[in-house]
């Protein structure tokens, strides 16, 4: 068994134990808690399980994010080293007097620009960048879910609910604009 499989197994077990006890404690304490049904505490108790699951998944996702970020910095560092080596080869050919200081700077910029543009143009960089952004978005999603659960606890609108309103507003605006056009031109939607 590889170390990745080991850590996956350990994480899975930790997740199971954590969910088991939060579930059980929630069931065991549901009666006394119902006394506080009108306040946020009861809801927080129910949501605690979901929050705990989200936090575990955040940890899992952090591993993927860190891997992608490491690869990203590795690509940058390797390219920097290659460009620096190329520049070092050129150094002996460049005169060191003041008149040539600008031209040596120009050579340095051109070499680094070429190496880095080649990196940013490569499929390897773009693929890792895409996955890095995706893993960051996964993290953002988990944070959003945790925040939503906290907001639900205190009966505040969540991002999802606000988005639903925005979507509804957008569709209503379109409909109103269409109706206004029909009213102005004096024709129906069927063109009659």
């Amino acid at each position, binding site marked *: 068994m590889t170390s990745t499989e080991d850590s996956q197994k350990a994480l899975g077990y930790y997740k199971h134990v954590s969910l088991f006890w939060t579930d059980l404690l929630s069931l065991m304490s549901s009666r006394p808690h119902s006394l506080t049904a009108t306040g946020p505490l009861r809801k927080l108790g129910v949501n605690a399980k979901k929050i705990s699951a989200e936090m575990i998944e955040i940890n899992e996702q952090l591993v993927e994010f860190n891997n992608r970020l490491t690869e990203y910095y590795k690509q940058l560092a390797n390219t920097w080293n290659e460009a620096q080596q190329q520049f070092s080869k050129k150094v002996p050919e460049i005169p060191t007097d003041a008149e040539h200081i600008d031209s040596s700077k120009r050579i340095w910029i051109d070499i680094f620009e070429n190496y880095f543009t080649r990196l940013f143009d490569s499929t390897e960089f773009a693929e890792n960048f895409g996955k890095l952004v995706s893993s960051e978005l996964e993290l953002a999603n988990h944070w959003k879910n945790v925040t939503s659960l906290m907001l639900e606890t205190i009966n505040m609108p969540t991002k999802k609910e606000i988005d639903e309103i925005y979507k509804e507003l957008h569709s209503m605006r*379109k409909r109103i604009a269409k109706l206004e056009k029909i009213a102005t031109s004096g024709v129906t939607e069927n063109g009659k």
Partner: protein
Amino acid sequence: MASELRIDPKILEEFLQMNKNIFEAPKLVAAPDEISMEMTPSDVVYSEGKMRLLHFNSSVPKQVRTPVLIAYAVINRYHILDIHPQKSWIKNLLEQGLDVYLIDWGTPTEMDRYLGFDDYVNGYMDNCVDFVLNETAVDKLSVQGYCTGGTLSTVYASLHPEKVKNLVLTAPVIDGSRDSTVVANLAKHIDVDKMVDTIGNVPPEFMYYMFSILKPFEQGLEKYVQFFKNIHNKDYVENFIRVEKWLSDTPPIPGELYREWVKNVYQDNLLIKNQMYVANRHIDLKNISMPLITQVAVGDHLVSPECSMPIHYAVSTDDKTMRVYATGHVGMIASSFSQKKVLPELGQWLKERSEK
């Protein structure tokens, strides 16, 4: 044994001068937020949501009746077209006797995350066109689109050809598969659905990242060295600060618009393949039967010429012109070169094809 460090006195002198310039800079240069952009006076003649339609005031009599409506890009702001009185695209067109309107898309907020191509083209743009046609009492107008505004203008001209007399596309984003820029490379590998579903509007910071990988050493380092080196050159410094102010001010992009953009233009490349749909309406580039001028810059590292040029071959009009300029994306619209070469040619082209 005594060691001796030998430094060329000229290098030392340059180093000390640079330090002096850096120290003096705040006394010589206004901060970007303090400068006045001296923009061409305009009136907001129509607005809808965050979008505003500007009509520029001119002291020169109009030479033609057909007005020009500029659809600026959705990235950064329209100020680059009016960056300095001596380099202003708008002022130049006015001085050539043209009547100029411009769409400022404004700053979308989270509330605008569901705005897409349909809202921009068949909503905002079409309403602006109707307003201008009504106000100027003409049947058709000239539409100019810059950068991503060029894509919107292309889609508009395909869907509403009866309202467009002339189409001007300046560095338009058309064929993503041929775009050889680093931005296009990254756009092809992004999970755009996940991005929009998670964050809604695309934040300015993400766009700044995209800009930062374009010539990182030239733009991120050398540019600033040159700025401090030229700190006593008033024109250089003034121009630098204005462009920097413009570069650092980009609004968020509505999520749905970004999603459609990346998918239709960069990932699936549907626009140039004549397979793109907006609100269930087919974008047939053969509908573009009005005179067309496409302006591209060989040094454009944001929208490569290969990305823009295919539009010239995809349309049905016989009256089409392609101009290739030896400059860059911004140089084509806001430079002494554009004043001397690009704009006189455009003004002439427009006047020859406009209602007198």
